[in-house]
């Protein structure tokens, strides 16, 4: 694995630990399992994910 690849993999891990919604994975999932259904656009996906995360108890503690 080259240094850039390593860095990219590390960045992906960090992004998921801090809870950044992963649009690429969602798009890949839709392509693979629901090829006929167009995936929701990136902006809308991000908006939905953030709303889901912050609108109910269960994402944060004291």
């Amino acid at each position, binding site marked *: 694995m080259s240094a850039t690849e390593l860095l990219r993999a590390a*960045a992906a*891990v*960090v*992004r*998921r*630990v*801090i*809870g*950044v919604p*992963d*649009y690429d*994975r*969602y*798009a*890949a*999932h*839709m392509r693979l*399992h*629901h090829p006929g259904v167009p995936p929701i656009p*990136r*902006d809308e*996906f*991000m*908006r*939905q*994910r*953030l*709303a*889901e*995360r*912050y*609108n*109910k*108890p*269960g*994402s*944060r*503690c*004291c």
Partner: protein
Amino acid sequence: MSKLIRAGFFAVIAILGAGAFARLAWSRGETVSAAWLLVAAVCSYAIAYRFYSKLIASKIFALDAKRPTPAVRLDDGRDFVPTNKWIVFGHHFAAIAGPGPLVGPTLAAQFGFLPGVIWIVVGVALGGAVQDFVILAASTRRNGKSLGQMAREEIGPVAGMTALVAVLGIMIVLLAVLALVVVNALKSSPWGTVTIGLTIPIAMLMGVYLRWIRPGRVLEASLMGLVLLVVALYAGRAVSESASLATSFTLGGTTLAIIVMGYSFAASVMPVWLLLAPRDYLSAFVKLGVVIALAIGILIALPPLQMPALTQFTDGTGPVFAGKVFPFAFITIACGAVSGFHALISSGTTPKLLERETDARMIGYGGMIMESFVAVMALIAACALTPGVYFAINAPASAIGTTAASAAEAVRHWGFTLDPSEMQRLASLVGEHTLLSRVGGAPSLAVGMATVFASALGGGTAMAIWYHFAIMFEALFILTTLDAGTRVGRFMLQDLGRHVWEPIGRVSYPAVVISSALIVAMWGYFLYQGVLDPLGGINSLWPLFGISNQLLAAVALCVGTTVIIKMGKARYAWVTITPLAWLTIVTMAAGWDKLFSPDPRLGFLSHAHGIQGAIATGALPAAIKSVADARRMVYNDYLDAGVAAFFMISVVVILGDSMREWMSVVRGHKPMVSSEVPFDVVAVAGD
């Protein structure tokens, strides 16, 4: 052979841990190294994880790596995403760890280090980690159902409704007490106020960057944010050193309280992407970074524990908060030992991410052990201060007066020593006017952390930067909790409110503004009365928060016990019943004391009667300026008493409803049917 070696290995760990505990318990009159505390904790964690969590995983749930998890079965790329267990562990830990495990142990250090460390370590092994793990496993087996849903479906509608209302009540008390911690940390501190104030535009800048400039580049934006946080730290120092600017940013408690309320209201009606989400990313980084740095710092410095194992304040006369070591040590330290709030996370995002259900052991049980370790570090940081300094920072002015000389005198009276010039020297070292009566736990933790960092990395000149860094770190995630909590509270209120008056449930602008304002007004009221309280506010609010958090833990353990019994594993129900029984005893005893204790510092009602008597005779104490103020204090005492009573009644209702359900299942009146999603479902990806 390897089995024998492994048995020998754990035997050595057990002996080492027991030895370290003995060393701590029998230390009298000499200082003990923090190393003993770390060894005692880490060895206990290892034994508890290896044996006790294994028992829960294999005997109760029979977790099976081949059984498809909801993330695998329901994978939709959005909610349900199978994720590597180390990533889920990091994510879960960042969600459960907040200011709670830092503040509680700091306050409980007034009893000495021994009660705190025993409760943190034993409480987590038999209570907190069990709760988190059991709820995570139960929710994973039920497609990620929430605690509220499980309470309703497993126990009954009464328990479900009580849990729902209790969560809202807990939220209000939690937000009030955390806001009070921030206000007390920033009171008359221009440096802190400017630094924390600047974190708001920094987060908004990140939000704008992520929305329009480089959408989705979260790591770039976070890096920029982290650099700007350091700039904010130095900007705060520059302001505090400028005579003209410093005065305009030196704010009193009531002003800060109003600013914090206004801020939380604005933040909770703003779009999430602008402020909340970017700051949450930032605070996750800072949180994980500081926890690692603190562990390394403590390992390098291994500070001697200046605080004795036990102080005389175990008798209930402590200046930081009133109440005997039983039950108040167990109420003061909630997060870090048992935290009911975690049940909301273990039944929230985390169960929808598990790749294999066997991962629940490391993430649920192991994640809580990590939080417990953070609590141990906070305890070490507090006990590394000399008792004189610790009490001068954490005791309210009503106990130590307002000058270094009066504080030294009060501390001498308690049997500790404090050189008055020491407090002045320490204050200027950390760049503050004064450190006297900076109640709430944050300033003393920051002094402790700054001492650890400065001694581990060398150079006392960096003390001021480390101190303000620590304050910023605590304030950063308290503010995040405040606006996220206000937002969640608003949704819960709208949800409850729509049963009463339909329009309040709408996602329309007036409904959002009205319900947000209502939530802020509710916690803001408690915050404001806490700021004005001559006993320091923390004295009444922190125990209420502890009781409410333990109430939620009781709900979670009731759900856990019901689930275990319905699985046909009633012979293992003691695993959740043991901590449940203990928490019930502790919350009831503490609630009773807060209501009916004849000591006016402890009992809300006797405090109210005392003031009413003073109003009647016209002889008000010097700290109360007018009859109107006195009447307001009486009203607040009754309000606090009502809140405590509400929490106690909730415990009784939920426990009673659960026991009724257990008995009818055990006696065979109700079928013993588990509501788990059965094993043999066909694993189909996609929604």
